[in-house]
C-alpha cells in the first residue's frame, strides 16, 4: 500500500460561480441592472421592493422581480400589485437562491425578455448566512436591516454585510418606539463594510425612497 496526495485546488461552488458568470454576461449584454436583495426573514424586503417597483413604474422605468421563498407565492402576488412582471421561485426547503435556479426561471419566464428590462430585482430567501456564498450574477448586492432587529446585527452576520454593495435600513417610521440607536447601527455597518452607501427608508411613509430611486438610476447609468 502506498499513499499519495493529489492536488485539486478546486472551488467547491465552482459550478455556481460559472453559471453566475454566464448570467452576469447576459445581464450586461441586455443592459439590465440586476440587484440581489438579502436580509433576515421579516426585515421588510417585500414591502420595500413593492414601493421600489411602484416608484420605478411611476417614473416610466421597466422593472421586474424574481422572488425566492421556501413555500407559497404570497410575495409574488403582493409584488404583482405594483403592476410589473413578478415570478415566484419556491426553493422547497433550500435556504438560498442559486444561479441555476435563476437561469431556469429566466428561461421559463414567457412574459419577460431581459433586453426589454431596465431593472431586475431578485428577492432572496430570508436568511443572513447562506445567500452570501451564492453569486447570482447580480451587479449590486443589497443587504437590508430593519430597526427592530438590533444595531449589532452587522457584527453578528459579518460575512453577508461585508459582501454587500449597499445597505438599506427599513421601517425607519418606527425607529423611535423601538429605541433604535441609529448612530450605532450606521457605525456597525461601516465597521464591517467600510465606505458602503446606506439608505434609511420606510416603505410605509415613503421616507428615503426618493434617494434610493435616484441611486438606482445612477447605478443603471453606470455612475455608481
Amino acid at each position, binding site marked *: *500500500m*502506498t*499513499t*499519495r*496526495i*493529489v*492536488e*485539486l*485546488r*478546486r*472551488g*467547491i*461552488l*465552482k*459550478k455556481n460561480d460559472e453559471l453566475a458568470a454566464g448570467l452576469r454576461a447576459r445581464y450586461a449584454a441586455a443592459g439590465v441592472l440586476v440587484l440581489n436583495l438579502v436580509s433576515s426573514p421579516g426585515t421588510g424586503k417585500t414591502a420595500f421592493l413593492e414601493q421600489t417597483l411602484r416608484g420605478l413604474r411611476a417614473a416610466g422605468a421597466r422593472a421586474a422581480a424574481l422572488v425566492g421563498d421556501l413555500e407559497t407565492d404570497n410575495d409574488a402576488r403582493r409584488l404583482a400589485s405594483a403592476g410589473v412582471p413578478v415570478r415566484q421561485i419556491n426553493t422547497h426547503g*433550500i*435556504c*438560498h437562491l442559486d444561479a441555476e435556479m435563476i437561469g431556469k426561471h429566466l428561461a421559463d419566464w414567457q412574459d419577460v425578455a431581459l433586453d426589454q428590462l431596465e431593472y431586475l430585482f431578485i428577492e432572496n430567501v430570508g436568511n443572513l*448566512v*447562506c445567500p*452570501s*456564498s451564492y453569486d447570482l450574477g447580480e451587479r449590486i448586492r443589497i443587504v437590508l436591516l430593519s430597526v427592530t432587529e438590533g444595531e449589532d446585527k452587522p*457584527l453578528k452576520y*459579518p*460575512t*453577508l454585510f*461585508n*459582501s454587500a454593495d449597499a445597505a438599506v435600513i427599513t421601517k425607519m417610521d418606527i425607529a423611535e418606539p423601538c429605541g433604535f440607536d441609529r448612530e450605532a447601527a450606521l457605525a456597525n455597518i*461601516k*465597521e*464591517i*463594510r*467600510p*465606505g458602503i452607501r446606506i439608505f434609511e427608508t420606510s416603505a410605509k411613509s415613503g421616507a428615503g425612497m426618493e434617494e434610493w430611486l435616484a441611486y438606482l438610476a445612477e447605478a443603471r447609468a453606470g455612475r455608481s
Partner: protein
Amino acid sequence: MHELSIVASIVDSVTETLTTLPDSSRGARVLEVRLNVGALASVVPDSLEFCYGLASEGTPLEGSKLVIHLLPVVVHCGPCGLDAELEGVQSFRCPRCGEPSIDLRQGRELEIDSIEIEEDEEKK
C-alpha cells in the same frame, strides 16, 4: 445551513477526480479530503464534518477524513502598502494603521485543496 449541499458538491467533485486518475490508481481509497475555508466563507466547520459522514456514505469517500484548514481574512492596506491578516471578522481595518479596507486578499475561500489516497502497490 447549506452545509449539506456544500458537502454533496465536495463528494461529487472528488468522485469525478478519481475517475480521471491513471489506471494504476483505479480503485484507490480516499483517506483524507483537505479543504481551505476562509473566515468569510459562511460555512460552519463542525456542521461540514457532521454532514460529510452522511454525504460520503456509499461513495468512494466513505470512511475518509475531512480536514479543514481555516484561513483568516487578509486585507490590503493602501496607506501601509501591506497585506495584513485580521484577527477576526468584526472590524475591517489595517491592524497597523487603523485605516478601513475592503480590499480583501484572502478570506472567502471555499475550496478543495487536495486529497490523500491509498493505492495497492501490486497494480503499479
